[in-house]
């Protein structure tokens, strides 16, 4: 469709005129323009909702909201075209078969072996080995080898040595969705462990010998403690209500040597609504400080984040400080349980704070343990009541921790944001379907590519320059302050206002420091080489001019020019906020103010336009003539690292 306008949400005057394309996998807007030809690409998988708004004199507005919090506002001149686009998008964003998803057509031009190697990058067996398993207390069990015991669990589960197949099977029959207690994390220093399961089908009085034996087995696998904690991450009321439906929680009287604990994290529906409310706050036009803070509090979002974090802290403390094993569950053991186990693991083990370790963590507690990616993030068209930002909350917990402990993580914020992006993008096969079983049936590893390999290849973009493996913050357990600490939880504008460049610091400290680090390293290497050559000069008269000039060029490229144009920025809208002070007299001020709308129109043209958000991807064969870098920003202003283009380059 031609003559479509792409509006800038913060300044309606900066609308771009161009052509809108719909392909099998993307929505693409190409700006008319002499040199730039800026393109905005959006994957259908990313689209969360499409809203057709009332037709105005200028055309028919179409609002596209994305799962990665990007908002695209288009204005289509003809109502009929708008309607066609709307209907098409509705269909395109509600795929019925997995094969419709982008990952099955995405082609990063790797051969079969490279694809296979990519999938092998993260290996859970190696991970459990790293933890020290198998050992005297824990072993790998193949009782679920054909998914015969639990179809949402992996084929390889880790259980206490004293848990026989009989006990496991018996216990699984007493657990919701047959998700029996299995090992998530083992601390070899003190033998304490974190196990996870779903709720027991205890109702008001039902018992199961094998399930009780299972918990005993977990306790016995830790000779250092004579009891285990059983942590139910639900609010007490909800857990009690479940009893009426024949489910519930463990009775301390029936299970010997357990200490039971409710933690009180709300369910997926509450979280879905919470995010919705928070996004509504983000969409407010020129909110006052009051609007924003009230809205944020009203959404309850940060309160939920803190609840998840507190649960993780409790479990980490139990393991690290008390040396007591913990069994965690919620209702089905695939949402809150996953969040809480992975937060706890992150706090306990510095390995998970490395880039590789983090990928392993997600693979372990989310992918292998059957978190329902399809249902939660809407790969395919499904029940809207199943949608919930569960993994988003976990990712935010990690960000909150990064803010509190800036030196503790090997990776940076961008890493988290890109992972979140790709959970929804379906560009890679890692987060498809609801279980390992489904993924194997679809032969995901043979037909799609692994995100981990892609991120690993680009890992230089994801490093935290402040990380040093020998730093005190990176050793041992992280101990976030529990109280007072409410103020420590900040609104993550890097995620929820990701595409509103005007909001963020214009200068990326991370990128700058990474460049400094690189340059320092280069200079040190150069120094070494020069030192050697000096020694060699004693022996021979040869001067290797070629090598010299090549090295000089490289350090020039890295040269940290201070007058870089990424520092330039334009004024924001300062004339709007008049709501905070009620005493405005209508007679006097109004005319003057409206006459003084200091917006882009009045500005000098010398400022480069840095507020563009281009969401560009390559690798789609039918439009392969578009080169990734050409379609983005002007070469002089694009530092590459600061834009989101890096995500999509295959």
């Amino acid at each position, binding site marked *: 469709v031609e003559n479509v306008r792409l509006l800038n949400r913060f300044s309606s005057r900066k609308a771009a005129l161009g052509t809108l394309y719909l392909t099998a996998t993307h929505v693409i807007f190409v700006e008319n323009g002499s040199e730039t030809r800026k393109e905005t690409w959006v994957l259908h998988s990313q689209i969360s909702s499409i809203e057709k708004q009332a037709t105005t004199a200028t055309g028919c507005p179409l609002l596209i909201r994305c799962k990665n919090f990007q908002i695209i506002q288009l204005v289509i001149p003809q109502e009929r075209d708008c309607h066609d686009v709307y209907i098409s998008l509705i269909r395109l964003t509600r795929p019925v078969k997995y094969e419709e998803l982008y990952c099955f057509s995405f082609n990063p031009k790797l051969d079969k072996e490279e694809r296979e190697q990519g999938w092998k990058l993260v290996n859970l067996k190696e991970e459990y080995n790293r933890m020290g398993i198998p050992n005297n207390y824990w072993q790998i069990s193949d009782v679920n080898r054909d998914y015969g015991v639990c179809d949402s669990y992996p084929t390889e589960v880790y259980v206490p040595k004293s848990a026989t197949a009989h006990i496991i099977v018996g216990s699984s029959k007493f657990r919701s969705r047959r998700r029996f207690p299995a090992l998530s994390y083992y601390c070899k220093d003190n033998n304490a462990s974190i196990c996870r399961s779903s709720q027991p089908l205890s109702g008001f009085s039902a018992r199961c010998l094998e399930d009780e034996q299972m918990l005993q087995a977990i306790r016995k696998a830790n000779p250092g403690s004579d009891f285990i904690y059983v942590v139910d991450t639900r609010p007490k009321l909800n857990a009690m209500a479940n009893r009426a439906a024949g489910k519930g929680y463990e009775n301390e009287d029936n299970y010997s040597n357990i200490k039971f604990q409710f933690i009180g994290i709300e369910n997926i529906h509450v979280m879905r609504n919470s995010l919705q409310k928070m996004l509504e706050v983000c969409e407010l036009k020129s909110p006052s400080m009051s609007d924003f803070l009230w809205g944020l509090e009203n959404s309850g979002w940060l309160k939920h984040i803190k609840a998840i974090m507190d649960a993780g802290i409790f479990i980490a403390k139990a393991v690290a400080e008390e040396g007591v094993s913990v069994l965690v569950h919620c209702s089905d053991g695939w949402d809150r349980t996953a969040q809480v186990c992975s937060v706890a693991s992150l706090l306990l083990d510095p390995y998970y704070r490395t880039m590789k370790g983090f990928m392993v963590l997600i693979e372990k507690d989310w992918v292998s343990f059957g978190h329902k990616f399809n249902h939660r993030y809407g790969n395919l068209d499904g029940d809207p009541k199943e949608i919930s930002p569960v993994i988003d909350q976990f990712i935010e917990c990690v960000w909150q921790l990064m803010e509190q402990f800036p*030196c503790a993580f090997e990776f940076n914020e961008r890493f988290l944001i890109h992972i979140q992006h790709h959970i929804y993008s379906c560009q890679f096969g890692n987060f498809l379907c609801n279980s390992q079983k489904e993924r194997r049936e679809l032969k995901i590893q043979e037909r799609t590519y692994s995100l981990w390999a892609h991120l690993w290849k680009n890992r230089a973009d994801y490093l935290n*320059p402040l990380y040093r493996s020998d730093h*005190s913050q990176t050793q041992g357990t992280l101990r976030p302050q529990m109280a007072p600490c409410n103020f420590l939880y900040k609104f993550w504008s890097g995620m929820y206002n990701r595409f509103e460049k005007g909001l963020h610091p214009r200068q990326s400290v991370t990128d700058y420091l990474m460049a400094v680090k690189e340059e320092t390293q280069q200079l040190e290497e150069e120094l070494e080489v020069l030192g050697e050559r000096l020694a060699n000069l004693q022996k021979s008269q040869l001067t290797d001019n070629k090598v010299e000039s090549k090295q000089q060029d490289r350090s020039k490229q890295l040269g940290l020019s201070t007058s870089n144009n990424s520092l330039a920025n334009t004024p*924001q809208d300062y004339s709007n906020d008049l709501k905070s002070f009620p005493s405005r007299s209508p007679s006097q001020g109004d005319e003057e103010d409206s006459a003084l709308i200091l917006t882009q129109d009045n500005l000098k043209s010398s400022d480069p336009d840095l507020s563009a958000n281009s969401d560009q991807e390559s690798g789609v064969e039918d439009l392969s003539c578009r080169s990734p870098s050409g379609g983005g920003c002007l070469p002089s202003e694009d530092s590459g690292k600061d834009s989101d283009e890096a995500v999509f380059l295959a």
Partner: protein
Amino acid sequence: MLRSSQPLTGPNRKRCREDEVLLGTVLDEGERGFIIDTRSAQAAKQARMTGGGTEPKSSYPQWRRLHRPLERGRPLQESFIKLVEACNDTSANMDRWLSRLESCRWLSHVKAALSTACLAAQCMDREEASVLVHGAEGTDTTLLVTALAQVILDPSCRTLVGFQGLLEREWIEAGHPFHLRCARSAYSHARLKQEAPLFLLFLDCVWQLSRQFPFSLEFSERLLLTLFDNAYASAYGTFLCNNEKERCLCKVKENTHSLWAWLNQPGEKTKYLNPLYSHNTLVIWPSVEPQSIQLWQGLFFRWIRSSQYVDEAWAEIQRLVEG
């Protein structure tokens, strides 16, 4: 950019030839200027009853008046006290924290101050127009705006030495009554009538700028904290008294040492430098959206929670940059 106090128009709409001529000399034929009045239009109008007022359009035809009300005086001090109370309240749970923060209004004041300063800067930089800033007395919100605007506009004000010069000019010499304003701070029950944390509000705004432009200020947060401390209680005479006249009478320069002299010593100075600084000749335009304005934890939680991890991060940054 000019600053003054309010014109004494009074209820009878008095005129003053000299004042009109003075302002007239600033503008060329056909040029226009902006007057930024830091009181609401209502408050400015009411000021006439007590002898003050605003510049009538008819007498100052080339000047366009804009009202940008900024909080000052008693309400600002209350805002500060409430915020400090909220921060110190260890019993507050997550549910109520944000609404408590909101009810203090402190961040709203930060947003308003930054917006107004940016507006003044915009007038000058984009409209290429002269600006006159005043409130009522010209000693509080006026100085907040003019000083902030200069940090935004002028790269030399962002250097360590330049910033000190800015403080000298726009706060100390300009007659901000430090002795009255920075008396007992937030814990005192005395509730002095003249006390108000304008200078702290200024420092908070500068901190916001440093967060949004981490490479653009030569000085670090530590300098801002030190200035805050010294405004209230100091071993140096820099922030003593209320104006130059009083300092003269008290012979401050003869009897005390200057804070700047101490800060600028080579050994001391390094503690106040920002390791990321790189001279930026451009104007820095901050975002004043609520998401961009954060609570200055380094100040408000200074004694409540350890800044160990953040300090370690800065130490690491220092190490990397020194390289």
